[in-house]
C-alpha cells in the first residue's frame, strides 16, 4: 500500500512525508504496549552519533523513525539490530521509533545535543558612554555543531580587554542553555574586546566606549587678517575623556550685522571656526545641551 501511494507522487517529498505521518498515525492507533515487545532504542543518543535499535521476533516489518526534523521508513528483518546513521539524528529532541508487522509497536528516545561547537554571542550596546554601571551586557548561547542549543551546563569565560591592555575575565556557567553578564563600562574611551569562550571555541565582539557630553566648553578668539578665528580648548567630557572627533560645536557671534553661526566639527579634539571681525560682538559656544563661556569682543 505504501509503495503504491508513494509512487503516486514520487516527486513530492512533502506529500510523501505527509503520507508517512498519516501511515504512522494509522499504525500507532493499532499499536499497543500490551501486544508484545517493541523496538528497543537507547534511552539517550547524542546528536550526530550512530546507534542501533534492536528488534524482537522474526519476519519482515516496516520501521519508522520520526524526529523533530527528520523522518524515515525502511523495510527490515525482525530480530536484527537496525543501524541508524548519525545524520538521521542531528536535531536534539524526542524521537519515536515505530515497528509495524502484524501490528505496530513504538518506543521513544531522546537525542541530546553534542558538545559546544559554537557560541552565539550577543553583546550590547555597540557604543557605550564611559563609567556607566551595568552598561555592557553579553549573552551567550552555546550550540553544538548541528546548531542544537546545549542545555547541559557549560562554563563560559567572558573576557574584556580594553585598548590599553587592561583586562578582566569572569566565568559564568550556562543555565538552561544561556549564560550572561552585565558589567560597568570602563573609565577611558576606546574599544573593548569582549570575548566569550568555552574550550577551544571563542567569539569576539567589539564594544566602543565613548566619551559623555562635553564638559566645561571654553573658547578663545584670535584676530587674523581675514577676521577672527574662534576655537575651543580641547573638548573633554567631565571624566576628562576627549569628546569624539566629528562632534558638532556651534559657535555663535552676535554683533551689529546680526547673528552668525558656524556648526564646526571637532577635529583632533578642537573645534574651530572663522568669522568676520566686528568692533563689538558677543561670541558663545554650545555643543548639544552644553553651553560654554561667552566672550565679549570690543575694540
Amino acid at each position: 500500500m505504501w509503495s503504491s501511494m508513494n509512487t503516486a507522487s514520487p516527486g513530492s517529498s512533502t506529500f510523501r512525508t505527509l503520507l508517512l505521518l498519516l501511515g504512522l498515525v494509522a499504525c500507532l492507533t493499532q499499536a499497543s504496549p500490551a501486544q508484545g515487545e517493541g523496538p528497543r532504542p537507547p534511552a539517550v543518543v547524542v546528536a550526530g552519533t550512530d546507534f542501533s535499535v534492536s528488534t524482537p521476533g522474526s519476519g519482515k516489518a516496516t520501521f519508522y523513525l520520526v524526529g523533530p526534523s527528520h523522518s524515515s521508513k525502511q523495510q527490515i528483518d525482525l530480530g536484527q539490530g537496525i543501524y541508524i546513521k548519525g545524520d538521521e539524528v542531528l536535531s536534539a529532541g524526542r524521537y519515536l521509533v515505530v515497528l509495524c508487522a502484524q501490528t505496530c509497536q513504538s518506543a521513544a528516545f531522546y537525542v541530546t545535543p553534542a558538545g559546544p561547537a559554537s557560541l552565539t554571542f550577543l553583546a550590547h550596546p555597540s557604543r557605550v558612554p564611559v563609567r556607566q554601571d551595568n552598561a555592557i551586557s553579553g549573552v551567550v548561547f552555546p550550540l553544538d555543531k548541528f546548531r542544537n542549543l546545549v542545555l547541559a551546563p557549560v562554563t563560559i569565560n567572558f573576557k574584556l580587554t580594553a585598548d590599553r591592555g587592561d583586562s578582566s575575565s569572569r566565568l559564568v556557567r550556562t543555565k538552561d542553555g544561556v549564560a550572561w553578564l552585565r558589567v560597568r563600562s570602563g573609565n577611558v574611551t576606546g574599544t573593548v574586546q569582549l570575548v566569550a569562550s568555552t574550550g577551544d571555541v571563542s567569539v569576539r565582539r567589539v564594544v566602543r566606549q565613548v566619551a559623555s557630553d562635553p564638559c566645561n566648553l571654553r573658547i578663545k578668539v584670535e584676530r587674523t587678517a581675514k577676521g577672527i578665528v574662534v576655537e575651543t580648548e580641547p573638548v573633554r567630557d567631565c571624566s576628562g575623556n576627549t569628546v569624539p572627533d566629528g562632534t558638532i560645536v556651534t559657535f555663535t557671534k552676535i554683533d551689529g550685522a546680526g547673528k552668525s553661526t558656524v556648526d564646526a566639527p571637532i577635529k583632533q579634539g578642537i573645534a574651530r571656526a572663522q568669522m568676520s571681525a566686528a568692533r563689538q560682538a558677543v561670541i558663545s559656544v554650545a555643543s548639544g545641551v552644553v553651553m560654554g563661556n561667552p566672550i565679549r569682543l570690543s575694540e
Partner: protein
Amino acid sequence: MPKATLMKSIVSLVIFAITAGLVAIGLATPGHGGGTLGITSGSALPGLKPAAATPEQALGYLLTDVRRQDWRGAHSQLANASEVDEVQFTKELAGSGGNLRSLSNLQRWELNPLHETNDDAQIRATLHWATAVGQIDEVRDVRVVHGEGTWKVVWPPPHFPNVPEQIIPVNYLRWDLVTSEAGADEDWGGRNVDAPRVRIISMNAVDYQGGSVVMGEVVNEDTVPAFVNVNAVLIGDQDHAIDEESSFDKIAHVLLPKQVSPYRIDFPHVALQQVKNVHMDVKATLVPASADPVIGVMDQKRETDALGRSVLHGTLLNESGQVVNMPHVIASFYDNNGRVIWVSDGYVDHALYPQTPEPFAVQIPRMVADKVENYHVVVNEYSITRQ
C-alpha cells in the same frame, strides 16, 4: 478667359494678399503677453525683433531670449551691452560649475512697473525658474531706459567671486561603515553595531493654508553620524490614519554627533481640525559620512523684502576648500518660549566657492512673523564631485 477661371484667379490673389499681409503684421508686431506674464511675448522669428515700444516690452523681449537660452540675443538687447561681458552675462543666467541655475530654466515671469518717465523706468520682475529641486522664484528690480527710439534694459554687470589661488589645509574626518559579508554561515549576533541614537526634541503642528504642517527639530545624540528621516502619520477620529508623509528634503539628513536639524512635513490636503493625533517616527541608520565642508551662516537678520514679506537673510561662507554646488538652507524659527513655530527652507542657486560669501534669504510666513524671537539655520550641501 472664361469668367469662372478669372474669378478663381482673383480669389487666389486675394487669399494670397491677405495671407502675406497677416504674415507681415505678425513679424512686425510683438506679442502682448510680456506686459504682465512672460509666456507669449517675443518676436515670431529670431533676429526679427521690433523696437520695444514700452519698458515692459523691452524686458519681455529680453526674458523671452533668456527662456529660449539665446544668450547672445539677450545680451544684444542690453542698453549697456558694452559694459556687460557676454560670457559673464551668460554665466549669470545659464549657471555654471554645477550650481542650481545650471539645472534651471526660466518658465514665466511677472512684471510690475515701479515708476516710469519718458526715458527711464523701473520694473519689478518676478522670475519663475523651473529647477531640479522645484520652482524657484526670483525677484529683480530692473532699470529700463529709452534711447534711439526704443526701450532697452540696463543690466548690472555681473560680478563673480574671483577665488584666489590658495591652499586651504583640511583635515578630513570621515567615518566608514565596516560590515561583514552576509552568508549562510553568518554568525547570529555578529552584526551588533547599533543604529545611531537620534531623538525628536520638539514637534509642533499648525494649520497652514488649509492644510497641516508638522515641524520641529531632531538631534543626533550619538557619537557617530546618522542618516535621519522623520515620518509623521496623522490620526483622525476613530484612530484611523488619515495621511502619512516624510520630511523629504526639508531636513538635514546626515547629522553629525550632537548636530540638530529642523524638519518640516507638509500635509497640504489635511486640515488640522481633522487631526486627532500625530504619530512621529524617526528613522536613523548608520552611514559613511564626512565632517566637511563647514559652512558658516553669517550676518543673519530679519528684514522685510521689496515685496513686503518678512524674510531672514544672511550670507553663507564655505570655510572649507571644496566647492559646494547646491547649498540648501533650512531655518527653524522659535517663539519666546523656545518653541519651533515655523521651518522654512530655500535653495541657493549659486555655488559656494571656498571662503566666498553668498547671500541667502528664506521667507517667514506672515502668520508667524510677529511671534518669531529667535532662529537657527542649518545648511545642507550637495556637491557634484563628491561621492
